[in-house]
């Protein structure tokens, strides 16, 4: 397949769709941005795409809880379409608000008999924080993180603290190799390395197949060297480290 097609879903309040499309384009994909209403009307649209991405923003204003209303819409109306999408071997990426939506929609395999066992909630500071963070990957389950060991990316959220219902759930996600991206002390980053109090420093997780991935940091905000907060201090004048995430998605279909 030459250029995989990427469906970028925007809901009321989504606001990172344009730069996410730009990142996929730089990576060699063919992105299209669709309004959620259109997808709700015709979920079969997904058949034409290889990657579905829910970008960052404030879907429905983060009202009630970040990602909750969009996540419920998926549970109520799109669960079958997305299950099918995943079973066909396709990819789903949720960035920031997209991660909040994915985790609240159950698509990251976090539900069990007692309901959702993981969530994203208010930062320990109780505030929205925009800050660059260091990240390390673990395991090789996640398609999007192949070949990446560490990177720096910006975080920008209020409700990004990863939490679990109980210790067993954490162990289960750990054993399943789902906790694939963690905050870490990476060269060039500044303490506190875990910016929001996330349990086990989790910054991103994938589902059991490794093809559905959600992360709080914004890889689409680091696809060019001038986006790095210290680019005037560095000699690194190439592409940004975040682009690799999008390249992995595109490469998966080539």
């Amino acid at each position, binding site marked *: 397949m030459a250029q995989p097609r990427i469906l970028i879903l925007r809901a009321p309040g989504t*606001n990172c769709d344009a*730069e996410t499309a730009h990142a996929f384009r730089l990576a060699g994909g063919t992105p299209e941005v669709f309004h959620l209403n259109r997808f709700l009307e015709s979920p079969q649209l997904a058949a034409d795409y290889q990657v579905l991405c829910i970008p960052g923003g404030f879907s429905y204003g983060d009202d*009630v809880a970040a990602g909750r209303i969009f996540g419920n819409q998926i549970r109520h109306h799109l669960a079958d379409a997305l299950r099918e999408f995943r079973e066909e071997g396709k990819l789903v990426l949720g960035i920031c608000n997209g991660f909040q939506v994915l985790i609240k929609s159950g698509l990251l395999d976090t539900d069990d008999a007692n309901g959702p066992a993981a969530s994203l909630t*208010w930062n320990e500071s109780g505030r929205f924080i925009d800050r660059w963070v260091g990240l390390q990957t673990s395991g090789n389950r996640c398609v999007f993180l192949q070949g990446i060991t560490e990177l720096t990316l910006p975080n920008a959220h209020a409700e990004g603290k990863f939490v679990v219902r109980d210790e067993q759930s954490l162990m289960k996600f750990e054993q399943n190799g789902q906790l694939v991206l963690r905050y870490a002390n990476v060269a060039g980053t500044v303490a506190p390395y875990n910016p929001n109090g996330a349990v086990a420093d989790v910054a991103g997780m994938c589902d059991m197949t490794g093809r559905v991935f959600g992360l709080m940091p914004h890889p689409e905000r680091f696809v060019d060297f001038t986006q790095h907060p210290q680019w005037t201090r560095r000699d690194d004048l190439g592409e940004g480290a975040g682009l690799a995430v999008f390249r992995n998605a595109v490469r998966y279909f080539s």
Partner: protein
Amino acid sequence: MLWEIDIHPLPGMPDRDAERVAVVAKELGIARSLTIHSARGFLLESDVLSANEAERLASELFTDGTVERSVVARVGDPTLVASPNGNSASLLQVLLKPGVMDPVAQSAEAAVRDFGYSLTALRTLRKYWVDGATDQQLAAISTRILANDAIEQTIAGPLSFDRLQVGSDYQFQLQTVPLKDLDDAGLMRLSREGQLYLQLAEMQTIHKHFAELGREPTDIELETLAQTWSEHCSHKTLAGRIAYRDERGERQFDNMLKETIFAATTELRKQWGDDDWCVSVFRDNAGIVRFNEEFNICFKVETHNHPSALEPYGGANTGVGGVIRDTMGTGMGAKPICNTDVFCFAPPDTPTNNLPPGVLNPKQVMRGVVSGVRDYGNRMGIPTVNGAVYFDPRYLGNPLVYCGNVGLIPADKSFKQVQPDDFIVSVGGRTGRDGIHGATFSSAELTHESESLSGGAVQIGNAVEEKKVLDVLLAIRDRELYSAITDCGAGGFSSAVGEMGEEIGAEVWLDRAPVKYAGLSYTEIWISEAQERMVLSVPPESWEELHALCAAEGVEATVIGKFAPTRRLVLKYGEQVVGDLAMDLLHKGRPPVIRSASYMPHEVQPLEMPTLGSNLTADLCRILGSYNVASKEWIIRQYDHEVQGGSVVKPLVGAELDGPSDAAVVRPVLDSRRGVVIACGMNPRYGDLDTYHMAASAIDEAIRNCVAVGADPSRIALLDNFCWGDCEKSETLGSLVRAALACHDLSLVLETPFISGKDSLNNEFSFVDSTGKKQTIAIPPSLLISAMGQIDDVSQAVTMDLKHSDSLLYLVGESKDELGGSHFALIHELDGGQVPKVDPKVAKQTFAALHNAIKKGFVCACHDLSEGGLAVAAAEMCFAGGIGAAIELAKVPTREPLSPVKLLFSESNTRILCEVRPEHADEFEKKLLGVSHACVGRTQAEPRLRIAEKQEGSPWINGELATLKKAWKEPLAW
């Protein structure tokens, strides 16, 4: 049936709202320590919702079971009131007043319907169980912390209602206002009591007009005139006739702004001829200039001072929303690409026990304003990239909130033209009773009664509604489905339709406007300033397509009239004509405001120098820690400054990502390297000495901030925002005219055109003090200069943090004896001294030379000298880069010998400190030929700033970077 679903934190989880209330209660001296438990609640009114369904909603929609638990019951059930801790705590419940925007309720209502459940209404509430407080303490907590009376109410104990609906059906009745028999006193009483805030000459003009027509005006006609003629909408004072007198003599202005600031722009555009890069200035919602072949950029800064004084969160929130709509309503609609926000507050440590009645605690004001800006800007997906905060006790009753927005617009979409017989289409939010009288209210001085008088002028925004409008708007713009657009701001439909129809005429069908709830009168619909609405002029043949596109994204679009070519404004409710005014009366009928203005410069008093030791490091730390200079990281990090992906120079830079940038650089087109540079300049302290030099300094500062990051000084556009006291006072207006004269003079020489501006007058607060005397606090003259520069290639941008430990430090620009209004004077409480002046010819040459050096890559760090002068700039560069420096004062370029204090702390303009690699020194110096500059020191690995007369001499400043940085970071690290 009224269900309530309460959401509590699970045991062991943080209860942040409760913690916040306890902290503020302590700050305000209400109670030293309180045990508080909080919960969020949702009230659901439905005749059919079952208990199981309510439980399902609680667990699947409202509660996050990993961190929260819920209580579900019908209102009236004791479980909703009982203290979760089992103690005897008192319950306080806070609800928004009926009709106040509640975005969470709107979203939640739709989300409940998505479950297939039917619902009549939904409201949110907050609950607090406070243990161990007296009744008096509870009352203080209610009124001073929990609820702002302008928008919220507190209920102590259980809720006493079982229905939520607001509004009742409206019975049409045409209202006329008897004017005929009123004398001057009667007219003025009507003006005041009807909240028209018109002046006597204006009331007399209206009186005469209707007498000639032989009828009385209707209420809506009078309101329309008051809105259109308000200071907010017509800027009648500054665009009016002014007789000005200063030390150089007298000058008569027919239109002061036009003859000063606009005139300079007009002159520059004439000089430039074919190279004119201005596109649209002082006519649209924002000024537009050329960016590249394909796009133009526009910039507008608004103020939202009076609403922010009454309700800081809502005022700032809707201030941001409003200026974004200015961008959306510029030309055929621009895409907002970044925000800038500047605030003026009383110091946050102002004692709270003796505040005048009606004044909110400055710390609370600051928290509220920052949250309001954050919540709107972040939700809109617009990066907030630049700003500043100034503190002065005189902002106590009148905090200032300046909100700016930059937009990107296709070059061929920069102009609009309403076509006759186009539909008038309202797009976006519904009209409610909120925001009535915001436009005329801003013409009035604030008093402690303002809150009760003008509660309706205070609103909460709904950012996601505006984001929806923005998304669909850009799509319909590109399909060319409308011929003109403007925003609904102050004055609501009245101003928007009145302005758009000025040349043609308009007929408005008020009963068709979608309303939030029943019961609005035709006049309320017409003048409501409900947020998130745009007005479009749509050719009838495009209407269906436009309507369908809006509907597909859940955005309401409604035809509310047509631009009928009658040159009249005809307002109808059903078949009934409720208003009929000639457009000429509205737009040309206002009698000119005639004012006198005078300015007498103060004699310069010499600065009485305090006795100083031989070590000024402590002075430097005090200046670094003064509120104006101190790090604003607490604010900056709450704003998303990187959304849209174009961030190049961020507000915080350096080795530890905490150094203060001079300006922001943003790349609005992601596949281009061309950048927009945003900066500002302001210094109210200089205005106390001379407003001419204050304005000149602010302009120099805004420009040098842009140049310091790499902007091309020949492509910088400026905005003016005048916030002043009561301009009916001749001296107050005189100080403003004097500042406008400086804007004219500097703009012309520096070739930096003003492209847009705004004023907010009457920023005075009156109250009766404890001895029964009337006191008035006027703000200091507060001119904000915002600058929008451009940079050919963002990869040539420079940041202010030192990069290497073996570089040379060059000081560009001349240092003078200018400690007047300085921060050195501030920390020592000194009056007098010479105010910093600007030599615009020298400034122009300096900026051009420096830009050439930066463009060639000869400058690796660059920081402007402003508050605190050389010592502060050097300290900031050092601790931002984690690199030390040794500086010799003997080498600082001056025309006459200056004392060490002056060399260190003088705030002379047009100065920039540069880090230059030794191998580039010769070429750097060549670029700066003819411009005052000198190598004044070197960087070093040792993390220390050392400033001495000569290298071997004993140092005046000798501080470890960690100490200096701590002094700078701590004061506002909340």
